[in-house]
């Protein structure tokens, strides 16, 4: 019954600063499911293989099941179905304290009646680590996080950022196999959030363990994650690197969720097939698709059909082009200008670097714009799936990734 969890004391005994006895901390999630008492399914058959020392970010809109998934890994929610392995051990029925994980909560969850030192030492004291080792470890971590001068303070005497550090410190002292973070930055103001985000990246390089991080902020997801799991309504929509999600979204949801400003979608477009050559028709303009797209579509046996075309705001060039739009709002941001325009009924946002701007883009003017055909994403009008990157097999296995081609 007892899992193969090595006592923390044993792992603390040797080594220098953060030298870890090589703990493999793979997390394998198989068909993980969460069904509540009222038959609401919060998480549908999630499959995920988190490699050792990987930083995985779960992202999605509110209520998509990302936090529930994390809480099931933590052991705070019962698992309704499926299997969860940490470090090769099936932990479905193992109590949170025996899973050798640490968690940082959105609310920090610092014990208000204990000072910072006791907050950080709490977990080690419960595991009966000798006092001198606790002291050494707590001071070491406090030093790294820059909170040594606050060790005697109670949490309520700390600012939001300092509390956040203490919460991270409390998790760090344990040298857990898996580091879980549930929206740790969402209670901070924008400036502090950016700062802490950078610190988490630094921290990650330093402690080098497996991370599972939940956020609804796609900027956090893109900057922190080795791989990102994007969820909607309890279903994983795509698992991939930040580049995968940005350049190779498998469906409309992923394409729309990742990237700010969001991707422009053109309704009523057509995929044309003329003499074995594919064209994307956006309004009156016809784009001959790139060679890679041609090959991929050919391999998929794609027929001509109605599509939704997606073009990222940063992939638009203005001045010349086949398409025309009317500028409605012009947001000058210094290094770039965001144009909110309307093109034949479709709202189109364009992000144009100011140094490339050589036409009049004041409000009310009509501008010509274009893009490179290889940057056009093609989505099936019926299913919303990307005609090139949607991979049926991986979706059926509930671990959707973008399709790979080798031409």
């Amino acid at each position, binding site marked *: 019954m007892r899992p193969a969890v090595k006592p923390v004391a044993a792992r603390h005994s040797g080594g220098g600063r953060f030298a870890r006895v090589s703990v493999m901390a793979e997390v394998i999630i198989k068909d993980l499911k969460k069904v509540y008492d009222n038959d609401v399914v919060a998480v549908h058959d999630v499959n995920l293989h988190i490699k050792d020392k990987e930083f995985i970010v779960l992202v999605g809109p509110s209520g998509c099941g990302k936090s529930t998934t994390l809480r099931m890994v933590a052991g705070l929610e019962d698992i309704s179905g499926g299997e969860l392995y940490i470090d090769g051990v099936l932990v479905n029925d193992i*109590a*949170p304290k025996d899973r050798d994980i*640490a968690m940082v*909560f959105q*609310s920090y969850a610092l*014990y208000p009646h204990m000072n910072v030192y006791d907050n950080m030492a*709490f*977990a080690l004291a*419960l595991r009966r680590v000798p006092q001198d080792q606790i002291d050494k470890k707590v001071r070491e971590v406090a030093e790294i996080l820059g909170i040594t001068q606050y060790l005697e303070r109670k949490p309520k005497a700390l600012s939001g950022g300092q509390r956040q550090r203490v919460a991270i410190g*409390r998790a760090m002292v344990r040298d857990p196999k898996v580091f879980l973070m549930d929206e740790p930055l969402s209670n901070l103001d924008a400036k502090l959030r950016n700062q802490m985000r950078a610190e988490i990246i630094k921290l990650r390089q330093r402690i080098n363990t497996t991370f599972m991080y939940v956020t609804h902020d796609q900027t956090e997801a893109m900057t922190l994650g080795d791989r990102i799991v994007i969820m909607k309504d309890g279903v994983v929509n795509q698992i991939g690197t930040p580049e995968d999600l940005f350049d190779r979204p498998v469906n409309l949801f992923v394409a729309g969720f990742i990237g700010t400003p969001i991707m422009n979608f053109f309704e009523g477009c057509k995929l044309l097939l003329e003499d074995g050559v594919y064209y994307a028709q956006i309004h009156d303009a016809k784009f001959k698709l790139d060679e890679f797209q041609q090959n991929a579509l050919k391999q998929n046996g794609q027929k001509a059909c109605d599509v939704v075309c997606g073009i990222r705001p940063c992939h638009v060039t203005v001045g010349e082009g086949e398409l025309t739009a009317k500028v409605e709002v012009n947001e000058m941001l210094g290094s770039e200008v965001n144009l909110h325009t309307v093109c034949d009924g479709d709202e189109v946002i364009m992000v144009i670097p100011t140094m490339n701007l050589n036409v009049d883009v004041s409000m009310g003017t009509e501008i010509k714009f274009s893009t490179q055909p290889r940057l056009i994403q093609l989505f099936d009008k019926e299913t919303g799936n990307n005609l090139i990157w949607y991979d049926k097999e991986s979706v059926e296995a509930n671990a959707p990734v973008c399709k790979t081609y080798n031409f």
Partner: protein
Amino acid sequence: MKTKMKTSSFIIIMVLAIIVAVYTLMPFFLVVINVFKSANGIVADPIGTTGASFSQLLTNLSNVVNNTNFSFWYAFGTSALITIVSLVLLALFGGMAAWVICRNKTKWSTAIYMVFIASMIIPFQVVMLPLISTFRDVGSFVGISMLQSIPGIVFAYCGFGGAMTVFILTGMVKTVPYDLEEAASIDGCSYEGIYFRIIFPLLKPSIVTVTILNGMWIWNDYLLPSLMLGQNGRVKTLPVAVQAFVGSYVKQWDLILTAALLAMLPMIIIFLIAQKQIMSGMVEGAVK
């Protein structure tokens, strides 16, 4: 604040406060001035200071403490034991009950909570006679004397004090974020550990409040001990023992008042010592 308050309304409030204070403190004042007098002196001038002397106080004290009928130290010890044990049990189990009721939201927990609330509404006088006969029956059934015994009355106090304790502590548990318990369970706390290391310390301000409220009531209570322990029983609390000086024809006012002062004294001393904590206990949690 003060400067903004109108002078006229300030005066009215002060006058009202003084009237209330005088009204409340008058009995206490009468006790204090009369313990310095002999029995005859009290009857002759109950509200003046005629005949009061410090030596008379010492005489009164020694008469009370050495009175064999009264057995002051025994009654004092009994009262202290009953009060302390009841308070410890109430704080401990009241906190546990509040925690479980608050965290396990089921039909049953809500029903149990409602029973607690309902029992607060029922006046003691309604249940006191059935209670005595029930205790007698239960006592004879389990073979433990529930009447005229310390465990019996402690049990009764835990029952009567439990409702308010659970009510106040449930309100406090609601303010403790659930995240803390989850964090503790990840940190390695057992279920009991979460209660004793996290919940109980965080309930401290409210526990101080309920302990004060229950403590004053249990220490001063006359009716329940007089029913359960009896006038001539083996076990006597201080308020019951004071009764020894009240005869059908003769009331020994000097001894009654001195004994009453002695009975009040511990509560007053505790209040003066713990005043800061009591006051902070009442306002803590009000402002984040």
